[in-house]
């Protein structure tokens, strides 16, 4: 059994992973300290609002890592990862709704407000169990995982890859968006789920809980990163790269390409689900707009900007773009999409390997380059 966990421990001995975890831990510690220790009127004080904002960025970073795992290392451009993110978010949202109890506007001890409003007299079957934290948290992993499994099984078995697969993933998230917009689905329609009170007994509206969620997100990002890194540094990771670059060749070597794709896709969808689940209590709402195809495309832009097939590049991309988005949409809201588009064009032209590529060049250490050399010139 000692050998069965080696893949997960291997990244911890790597300099790059140690560096990543070190920086992440330091950032979490600094934010926590500045939030707790600095007086509120100090310039160095980090407000609860900022802590939650940073927590949201970290959720996005975890989602970006999940996308990079399938796009960078497996060559599957998923334009629908927002669907897994949103499903994880809805599973968490359902738990949080059940935690409201009779404190809702209508005071019904069981039914969430929107169901009372729609004159429903009992809980739909799929809402049962979500009052228990362990069940809800299991669903956060299982629902996106199951969807990814069914979707991936059908797609990869039929050897659908490339642009076609990307388009189907878009269709998947779009279809889910339309479905979740319907009131009859029982997920709150276009208003989604909101008005959350507590999580695991902690009041969501206190600063301490918000800080706790921020730290939990940081830990989830660290664990997600190590899992992904463990996969890509294992032999399975090299097989993924092989599937990405020469699928037929890999098949003739005796690997079942569709199973490799399915495995990595499901792991990635589960990570996206966790990211969504941590996102919802921090922003306080989940609605069908998270299923929007545009959001999924934006995630891909973060990864491309940060640098594909590096994992840490995805984190950098997600943090930078979302920080820029916060700043820009505050200063001149109309210009944001132009700025994002412009940034994307500039990076594609001048930094084909993204920000991570720039960092690697700077360091000049001849670190092994996992990206496809044929694509670098394209």
């Amino acid at each position, binding site marked *: 059994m000692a*050998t069965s966990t080696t893949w997960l421990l291997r990244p911890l001995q790597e300099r790059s992973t140690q560096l990543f975890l070190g920086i992440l831990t330091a950032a979490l510690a600094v934010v926590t300290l500045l939030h707790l220790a600095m007086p509120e009127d100090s310039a160095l004080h980090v407000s609860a609002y900022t802590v939650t904002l940073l927590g949201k960025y970290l959720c996005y970073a975890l989602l970006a890592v999940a996308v990079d795992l399938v796009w960078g290392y497996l060559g599957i451009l998923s334009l629908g990862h927002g669907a897994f993110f949103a499903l994880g978010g809805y599973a968490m949202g359902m738990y949080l709704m059940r935690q409201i109890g009779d404190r809702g506007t209508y005071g019904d001890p069981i039914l969430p407000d929107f169901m009372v409003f729609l004159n429903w007299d009992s809980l739909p079957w799929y809402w049962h169990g979500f009052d228990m934290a362990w069940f809800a948290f299991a669903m956060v992993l299982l629902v996106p995982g199951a969807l990814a499994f069914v979707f991936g099984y059908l797609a990869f078995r039929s050897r659908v890859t490339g642009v076609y697969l990307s388009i189907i993933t878009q269709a998947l998230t779009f279809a889910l968006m339309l479905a979740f917009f319907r009131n009859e689905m029982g997920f709150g329609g276009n208003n989604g789920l909101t008005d959350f009170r507590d999580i695991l007994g902690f009041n969501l509206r206190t600063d301490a809980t918000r800080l706790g969620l921020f730290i939990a997100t940081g830990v989830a990002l660290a664990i997600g990163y190590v899992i992904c890194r463990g996969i890509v540094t294992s032999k399975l990771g090299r097989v993924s790269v092989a599937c990405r670059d020469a699928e037929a*060749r890999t098949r003739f070597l005796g690997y079942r390409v569709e199973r490799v794709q399915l495995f990595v896709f499901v792991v990635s969808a589960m990570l996206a689900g966790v990211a969504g689940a941590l996102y919802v209590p921090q922003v306080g709402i989940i609605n069908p707009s998270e299923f929007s195809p545009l959001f999924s495309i934006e995630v891909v832009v973060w990864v491309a900007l940060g640098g594909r097939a590096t994992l840490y590049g995805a984190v950098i991309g997600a943090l930078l773009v979302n920080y820029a988005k916060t700043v820009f949409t505050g200063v001149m809201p109309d210009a944001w999409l132009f700025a994002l588009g412009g940034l994307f064009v500039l990076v594609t032209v001048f930094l084909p390997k993204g920000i991570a590529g720039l960092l690697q060049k700077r360091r000049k250490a001849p670190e092994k*380059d996992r990206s496809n050399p044929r694509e670098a010139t394209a």
Partner: protein
Amino acid sequence: MSMLEQLTNRDQVFDFLAPAASPVDVRHGPILYMEDVNVSFDGFKAINNLNLTIDDGELRCIIGPNGAGKTTMMDIITGKTRPDTGSVWFGSRHNLLTMNEPDIATLGIGRKFQKPTVFEALTVFENLELAMAADKRILPTLTAIMKPENRDQIDEVLEMIGLKDLRDKLAGILSHGQKQWLEIGMLLMQKPRLLLVDEPVAGMTEQEMERTAELLTSLAGKQSVVVVEHDMGFVRSIARQVTVLHQGGVLAEGTMDEVSNDPEVIKVYLGEEA
């Protein structure tokens, strides 16, 4: 074939009685046996009553003009294309027509493509590592650890294909010839019983060709090797047995001298070059 149909076939072992995983059996005959194989694509007969047997340890060259069905033949053996009729056996136990590509690869048939396809984003060493005979299911692959004997096996193959100094270089930077050798090395890592090699010297320099000829002849005996090639000089330098394909069937078979003196062969193939 349905179970009921099988029961009426008295000259064959029923599928459900045949041992599922068993080593290749060549005690009673050839390692590869193809009989009356036919394939047509949209009415075009790519393979036309093809009969071919390859003995264990043999080095066989297959020549033929473009469209003679050489690549289709390899597709059939490796499970990529299913023939319309005919039978293809690997040893006397394994019916290749009932197996899929990964199973056939695992059973011991390695294939080298016309265009060198190596994994360019991986190092030479890693390319060989992936090709190594091992449990290739998901979880064993995830938890796989390189053992010293695996490392030795890879080093041995690196020595054979002459890429020892390049072991930690990305395969993408190799020259065309080196990629071809790497690919042959990858085949060797699978410890195949039968190697199918498609145009190994296309685009190679004179020196590289010599090196390749040495490599292939050194393999024969341990493995059965089937080489499909256009370059007649190269075929002459390695071949003991030559099969000439034409319009999807076997036109002639024999030593290079016999074949090149066959009037039919001269007419359809060699005549063009002479």
